[in-house]
């Protein structure tokens, strides 16, 4: 089997969202001497790109996206130790801390965003729902984040997005991070009014915007 055959197999296994198929393809590629980072860059990530496009085009939905992400994560349990051995750790696109603001218990949009970040090459740290504003900031410091992405679905919780930005300003750290806001109750005008670095109507747009902000 040529390297190109291995890459096709890896890509297709991710597109099929089949964890067993992914693990078999990863093991076969490694056995034939392909480096772990190359397996990711030329096999798995192209598959995840297709998954992302299919999700955007409504050919697949959140369950399939999650299945593909789980298969990728399973592959990474094999590949990460190899990457350390090889000393070939590559560049991430960026590091993101995300969550839903304090008082808001909505999770689906934020969960989709997390998956799209991960499948697009970002390191994503999901703080969950009902997140205290200082948790955003502390986590961003801890992981040296590039972006803080804050979701709010309710009109009464919108102010939580402004609070994070205000707290960053008070701490003198506003310029250290790009802050993106989104969620059902938000608008571009709201984002501008609170001084956010960006607003996205959809998770896919948020990832595209994030890519441009960190590049």
């Amino acid at each position, binding site marked *: 089997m040529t390297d190109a055959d291995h890459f096709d197999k890896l890509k297709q296994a991710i597109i099929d969202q089949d964890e067993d198929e992914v693990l078999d393809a990863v093991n076969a590629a490694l056995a034939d001497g392909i480096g772990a980072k190359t397996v990711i860059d030329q096999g798995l990530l192209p598959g995840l790109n297709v998954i992302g496009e299919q999700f955007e085009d409504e050919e697949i939905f959140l369950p399939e996206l*999650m*299945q593909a992400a789980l298969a990728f994560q399973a592959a990474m349990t094999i590949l990460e130790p190899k990457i350390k051995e090889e000393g070939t750790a590559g560049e991430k696109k960026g590091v993101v801390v995300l969550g839903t603001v304090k*008082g808001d218990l909505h999770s*689906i949009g934020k969960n989709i965003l997390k998956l799209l970040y991960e499948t697009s090459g970002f390191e994503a740290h999901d703080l969950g729902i009902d997140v205290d504003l200082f948790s955003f900031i502390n986590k961003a410091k801890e992981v040296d984040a590039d972006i803080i992405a804050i979701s709010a679905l309710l009109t009464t919780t919108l102010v939580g997005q402004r609070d994070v930005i205000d707290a960053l300003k008070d701490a003198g750290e506003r310029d250290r991070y790009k802050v993106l806001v989104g969620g059902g109750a938000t608008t571009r005008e709201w984002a501008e009014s609170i001084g956010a670095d960006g607003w996205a109507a959809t998770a896919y747009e948020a990832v595209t915007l994030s890519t441009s902000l960190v590049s």
Partner: protein
Amino acid sequence: MIDLIEVFDRAETGPLISETDYYMKRYVPKLSEVIARHKVKWDKQTIINTDDALTDAVFEAAVDLIAEAGAYCPETNRVMQFSRDEIEVACAQAPRGATFGEGRERKTMYGRRPDTTDDRPWVHVGGGIYTSDEQVYMDTVEKMASFNIVDSVSVPSILHLRGKDSRVRSPQEILAACKTVRLAREGIRRSGRAGLPIINGISAASQPASMFAASYPDFGLRPSDGFLIDFLSEMVVGYEALQKVAFYNSISANIGSTSTPLFGGYAGGAEGVAVTATAYMIMGNLVFRGSYHYNAPLHSKLHLSSTKPLIWAIAMSNAAIGRNMGYPMVNLPYLGGGSGTKQYHYEMACYMLAVVTSGGNVFSGHPAMAVQTDSLVPDDHRFHAEIGLAAAKLTRAEAEPIAQKLFPLFGDKLKDPDKGLTFQEVYDMRTKQIVNAEYRKAMDEVREELAGMGLEVPVS
């Protein structure tokens, strides 16, 4: 039917599971299984289904979904399980009517069967859109309540106190919720219809404490109004919802079980949304003891409900419940077009033709995805109620070709909808008469176009 305490106990005694595992190992695979088992399939062309066998298959799939996946309580990390027998008894014993209002405004909303053309459906108007100003708020409510075809209203939100927006869970939110219902009741009183019910209680309350506070009778809401209790995420029954269930059942108030299954989310596409929406209506009675259901499926990216697969799924869920359960339903549309735009009217007409002929009652809805402040323009809602009443005279088969003609008029605009008007841009703020000629013209033209398509919409 199993009693309420037993329902609450199910959240304490079911199998332990993480939320991710609930979705990936129970809800998602079970949803796929029941869709395949019952051969639920959208043909991608139809807007309004007329196949009763398919409709009944959706209902059976929904019953199986509840029996096999259960609901999830995030506070206890347990699955709330219900047997097929328990679910079927809840369906059989579901209310067929919900009585709202006081005095001469006291009426009953009934569950409707698809293709019923000789009844007069319940007419509900309004929405919980944010309002910037107390005067605009009162005028909006007064004007909507004054339309004589209206049986109940959804009132907007007003969140600010002394010029500041109130924050979720704050004491100000409790005051804002109380203010909302006081203003709303006063607006209704000014319309001359003091007993008219508010059935979206309470739009400014995001937490049980605010809802309970604003339910104090002196503030204006009564058990004969309607109180919304929602499923938070797909099949999630949280403690906050169960607290509201406990309280509103304790004061014997009308409960509007509310659900927003997301197209593109865990429910997947059209088939998954149809089955999940139907399951929510069944659980609305089984778990929440609802008197009526607020059905509000949404597109996860576009944040609206007027795509072709969503309209199909929403209508299908109405037909499934209408044929098999008879639970009273209204459907809350989130539309893309702004107030007063032709796009908004086309979307609403297509939506009404689908849901009202399929067994839903009439409910006008949100323009501009419900995010434009002051965008509740009462005459839009009167027109849309008139469209709903006209649609109620048609069968699904008669409505489908009209819906097919309407969809191309707005389908391509859903990703970038037409911007609309605000209350202040339509009305003279002193006389409350329409002064925007373009607004009136667009409505008149759409009324003519609808007549040309075969839907005569008389002026009420």
